[in-house]
């Protein structure tokens, strides 16, 4: 009789190797969905077999911005709204990197809005995970460009009345090649979308609707995190390929989720190289495969530890 090999029981949470465990527990509130998105991100990294050494994660300011500090990767917690341009610089200086931008709706679409649309226009090869809790959470619950109408926030105490951004529509119009939206209820789908984004070159944007129980949900009497998750489960409708003009959100209406855009356009680096080759021919010095732009002398910045 052959002895069946028994796989050892996994000793830990598959997410744990991706976390800076020495910084746990994190600061996010009970019922906040950001941590859930991190689980999906970790699973996507495992499944897509991305080389973690090449992974850099850049975040802005806000609750979601804190993700960078909690994941055990080369991580950069930058300034409010500017994760995307920072990530752009990083990607251009070292095209071998897989650069992920992980930030919130206010950070990416308000103060960072200009950078969002330009990076999408340029089709910079970035994977943007936008956790949209429809509010500025970290600073106490102010109106964000994504806050739906008739919501109560600390800066709209009598109710919001501004039209809100439809983020998938915005980034599609700007040129993103991959646009998807899920909620924190859709853990498997979200993970899969992140994987798909890793397999894609160009500007990918994944919006994740998430509860902010302490501020958005509480002020609008929408229950706690769990009730919000049940609302997501009940009211979300998967419509792959739905025209993004139709996926706007309201205070307690339907949430259309799915993969809305998946197209192919040459990314910024491909366009740059093509143009340079065409114009300069042999005179163009392409990105140095060995050294990148880091080394600027005979031996480089530090001979032995140069990547």
């Amino acid at each position: 009789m052959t002895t069946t090999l028994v796989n050892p029981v996994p000793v830990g949470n598959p997410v744990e190797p991706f976390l800076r465990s020495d910084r746990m527990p994190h600061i996010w509130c009970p019922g906040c969905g950001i941590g859930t998105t991190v689980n999906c991100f970790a699973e996507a990294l495992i499944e897509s077999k991305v080389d973690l050494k090449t992974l850099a994660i850049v975040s802005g300011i806000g609750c979601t911005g804190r993700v960078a500090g909690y994941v055990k990767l080369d991580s950069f917690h930058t300034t409010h709204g500017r994760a995307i341009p920072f990530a752009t610089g990083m990607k251009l200086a070292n095209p071998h990197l897989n650069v992920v931008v992980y930030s919130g709706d206010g950070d990416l679409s308000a103060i960072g809005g200009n950078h969002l649309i330009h990076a999408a226009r340029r089709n910079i090869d970035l994977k943007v995970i936008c956790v949209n809790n429809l509010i500025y959470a970290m600073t106490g619950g102010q109106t964000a460009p994504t806050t739906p109408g008739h919501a109560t926030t600390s800066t709209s105490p009598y109710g919001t009345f501004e039209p809100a951004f439809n983020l998938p529509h915005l980034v599609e119009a700007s040129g993103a090649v991959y646009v998807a939206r899920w909620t924190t209820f859709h853990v498997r789908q979200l993970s899969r979308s992140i994987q798909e984004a890793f397999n894609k070159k160009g500007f990918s944007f994944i919006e994740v609707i998430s509860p902010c129980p302490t501020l958005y949900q509480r002020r609008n009497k929408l229950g706690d995190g769990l009730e919000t998750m049940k609302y997501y489960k009940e009211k979300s409708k998967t419509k792959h390929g739905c025209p993004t003009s139709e996926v706007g959100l309201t205070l307690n209406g339907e949430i259309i989720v799915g993969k809305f855009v998946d197209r192919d356009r040459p990314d910024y680096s491909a366009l740059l190289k093509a143009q340079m080759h065409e114009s300069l021919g042999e005179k163009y010095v392409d990105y140095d495969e060995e050294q990148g732009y880091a080394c600027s002398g005979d031996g480089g910045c530090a001979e032995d530890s140069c990547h």
Partner: protein
Amino acid sequence: MLANLREPQAPACGGNVAAKGRVSIVVERCKACGFCVEFCPTKVLALSSAFNSKGYHPPHVIAPEKCSGCDLCGMYCPDFAIYGHKNPAPPKAEAKADAKEVQNEG
């Protein structure tokens, strides 16, 4: 201090051999949001009456035999406080695994 927070509890599955999976709970990280309880497909969990040091009621396993080890609880948990994993398939030669009763909550 931080080390305590990291200690996974003993496997939450009471040693019923039929369970395909089991769950581990890091009690000190839990904020009792209830996601794991709600979204476990086989309703293995419920919030316990115990408290962790922050005053939250962490979940406990109420139906260990129903755990499939799918790790949906782990996927949902915003606090990285719980995860599920599949039990290893029992080798044919040893059809009956040890029926160890293990405490599942602190």
